[in-house]
């Protein structure tokens, strides 16, 4: 059943367009795929200018809420789970994204946008497993 009270079509679409614009600009200006896990990993494995633009991109993400705060109060972020669960989930996401060569941005947005079959398989896999995980946690446990 659709949760109409929490469905926010306008801000979702606008936010999506902004994310798309960020991916489009990084591609058209820098010739780079906006894959966040890959770029983050690359800040460790590269040096010089190749490291510098990656650090700049990650820094932009980290500081984005500061820019937001200059214009409006931050939206609510509700995190469920104790520190142990957050650590385990972080570890799984890090290992998984690196092993699977991408995450929601690299495969889910950029990969699907260039019609990559490999990214489609990756996206369906992580979406499917995430849906099953939420189902087990919320409805079976």
């Amino acid at each position, binding site marked *: 059943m659709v949760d109409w009270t929490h469905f926010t079509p306008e801000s979702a679409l606008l936010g999506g367009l902004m994310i798309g614009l960020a991916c489009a*600009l990084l591609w058209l200006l820098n010739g780079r795929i906006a894959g966040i896990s890959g770029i983050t990993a690359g800040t460790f494995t590269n040096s010089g200018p190749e490291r510098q633009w990656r650090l700049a991109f990650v820094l932009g993400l980290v500081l984005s*809420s500061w820019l937001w705060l200059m214009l409006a109060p931050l939206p609510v972020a509700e995190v469920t789970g104790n520190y142990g669960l957050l650590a385990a989930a972080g570890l799984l996401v890090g290992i998984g994204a690196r092993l699977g060569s991408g995450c929601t941005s690299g495969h889910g947005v950029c990969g699907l946008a260039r019609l990559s079959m490999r990214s489609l398989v990756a996206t369906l896999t992580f979406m499917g497993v995430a849906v099953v995980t939420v*189902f087990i946690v919320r409805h079976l446990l």
Partner: protein
Amino acid sequence: MQKHWFLSLSAFICGLLFGLGLLMAGMANPAKVLGFLDIAGLWDPSLALVMLGAIAVTFVAFGFSKKMPQSLLNTKFHWPDATAITRPLLAGSALFGLGWGLVGLCPGPALVLAGTGSVEGLIFIVFMLIGIRLVDYFQTRLSP
């Protein structure tokens, strides 16, 4: 100014814009992401629209770039060259989905959340970085 400073400046602006987009979309709120993944409960379809909007704009940019000899800042277009559906791709994506489903955080929103000073976001990011480094460590050791 040297070229790589322009590349870093544009990457910084793209990172900012990406983060603002995540905040606008509600994706920096793990509860909203879980609401999308919970198709058996009260389902919030917002995230589907986020993906749709983002993919549509990026799709146009990819199409546009095919007619360009190089990027606007004079670099080559780094098209990903891997096409094979491999076991690491499937296993990695499955592990990623498990972690994503457990708390509703993936790398981008987690970096944004950590930037707000959220302890939860910081813990997630520290362990995510450990995970990334672990894979790189073992992959460089195991491959010739």
